[in-house]
């Protein structure tokens, strides 16, 4: 079941979400990473990052909080060791990038522009902007647009640039529109909203960083709402839906809301075989409903209610 990410064809619409598939090597013993629609890398930064102190994770009802702090080896090590491993195997790789300033995002895009094996670039806009007292890019339409425009200008024209949006903003449609207007070829929704949990025994925050990103089925309704709103406002823009997808039914829910591809995240921590299973379930559900192509189901929940009833009654 083919899917399209902007103009790039993917063999199927199920992706591994950023930060949930490691470097690909960790997932490989369980599932063939080359058979994913695409694998999204963790967010790559210019310099190596040690990340946040532990504890970095806390389980919450139907979800988890994490504050890893973009731990990673930096772009040089990524290009030397991680991307070639994926490229050699023919894995379609969406490279997620994270930065603290517009200049850092631009520099990352320049480094990736000539690298073989980059299927698309995903801009993680949920990074604190050091030039704006740490306000995340995703919260401000103007800076988000600035990042997107500079990354789009630095990347090769045939590599789609995807902006990943956060749900905990005042007006997600406004941010989405600003990103698309400045050149984003597709949008990814949603990044983790910020949550917090306090350990009542130690009477301290459960995470060393205090707050962290909430993921898992707990946030699926947020994802469906964001995808729905943005698809309604910008029906021509390809959307990658994500947020608490655990089954084919969950994936179909996002597709019906308007997503043309679906990424699986936290579920991979629980079930490393999740991607092929979810794809199979999604294909079965679509066939049961009489769809030959995924595209026919994208955004279908937006059709006017009771249209069929009206047609019959007009006879």
């Amino acid at each position, binding site marked *: 079941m083919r899917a399209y990410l902007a103009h790039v064809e993917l063999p199927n619409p199920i992706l591994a979400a950023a930060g949930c598939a490691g470097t690909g090597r*960790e997932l490989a013993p*369980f599932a063939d990473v080359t058979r994913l629609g695409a694998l999204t890398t963790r967010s790559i930064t210019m310099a*190596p990052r*040690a990340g946040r102190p532990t504890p970095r994770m806390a389980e919450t*009802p139907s979800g988890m909080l*994490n504050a890893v702090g973009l731990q990673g080896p930096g772009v040089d090590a990524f290009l030397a060791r991680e991307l070639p491993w994926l490229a050699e195997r023919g894995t379609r790789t969406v490279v997620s990038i994270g930065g603290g300033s517009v200049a850092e995002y631009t520099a990352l895009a320049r480094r990736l522009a000539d690298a073989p094996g980059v299927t698309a670039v995903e801009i993680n806009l949920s990074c604190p902007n050091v030039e704006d007292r740490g306000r995340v890019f995703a919260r401000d339409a103007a800076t988000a647009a600035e990042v997107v425009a500079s990354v789009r200008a630095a990347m090769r024209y045939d590599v789609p640039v995807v902006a990943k949006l956060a749900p905990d903003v005042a007006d997600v449609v406004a941010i989405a529109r600003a990103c698309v207007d400045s050149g984003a070829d597709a949008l990814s929704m949603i990044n983790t909203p910020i949550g917090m949990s306090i350990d009542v025994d130690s009477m301290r925050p459960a995470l060393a960083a205090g707050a962290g990103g909430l993921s898992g089925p707990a946030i699926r309704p947020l994802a469906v709402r964001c995808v729905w709103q943005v698809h309604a406002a910008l029906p021509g823009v390809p959307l990658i839906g994500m947020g608490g997808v655990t089954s084919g039914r969950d994936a179909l829910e996002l597709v019906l809301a308007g997503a043309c591809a679906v990424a699986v995240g936290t579920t991979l*921590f*629980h079930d490393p075989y999740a991607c092929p299973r979810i794809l199979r379930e999604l294909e079965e559900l679509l066939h049961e409903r009489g769809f030959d192509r995924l595209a026919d189901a994208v955004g279908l929940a937006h059709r006017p209610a009771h249209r069929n009833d009206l047609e019959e009654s007009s006879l």
Partner: protein
Amino acid sequence: MAGTPVQVTGTVLTTRRVDAYHALTVVAPGIADRFRPGHFVTVAVGGPHTSMLTRRAFAVHDVKSDYGGTVEFVFAVRGPGTAWLADRKARDALDMVGPLGRPFPLPRDPATCLLVGGEYGSAPLFALADALHQRNCRVDFVLGAASSDRVFGALRARRMGETTTLTTQDGSLGMRGSVVDVLPEVIADTRADVVYACGPMPMLRGVTAVCVQFDIPVQVSVEEAMACGTGVCMTCVVPVIGDDGATRMVRVCVEGPVFRGERVRFDDVGTIPFDALGAPGGDRGGDRGGDRGR
């Protein structure tokens, strides 16, 4: 690296109470085949429609060849996930992934090995003792806990070990105190060539300090909270000094759980040491408030 971990839906064969702990034996052939001492498994808790998302990690206590291969692990009830596990009955299904992590390295030539366990951290030491015996190593045990009902495997240690020293904080079994208190004497008496330790982090830190004093190698199996066990979630990191002398935040689940004790910066666990690779404020910070909270 673990061979190739697999995910299996195992069947609970037996459940038993061992003093303050629970032990589950699960038929899981794919995991038992690939097991080496020091490996761990992760278990999904709460059933198929649970609200508990993260897998629980447990060191493998024992594997047997019955029923195609069984895996036994030991745990204490600490929250709703382990409480659910404690309620499992024979024939219940259990979703397990394993074997995971790097196992204990074994000495090439016969050596005198001292196995140190705290609380139910002693669970993986008996399979290790078996493997060491097969290599004609001498094995001694030091096991300790807060009280006698929390010392795991004292009887088996007495059967397998050349000598066994037990300690409890309340003096209800063996010597009063901790395993670290008796360790110098035991190392001197047994003339241990190498120490293997598994248990709570403060104990591993104490054991490592003693071994450094005696200048003998120590292998520690570290326990850190993790969500996946497969190396993707990046939550179980500890600061470890690499071969090149640089400190990195490494994952306990794939680079460990067994490390050379002197390489683990126990004093800095729960922090990002300023000299760690990529620490905030290093060559190219860019991170705002990376040292916030501890």
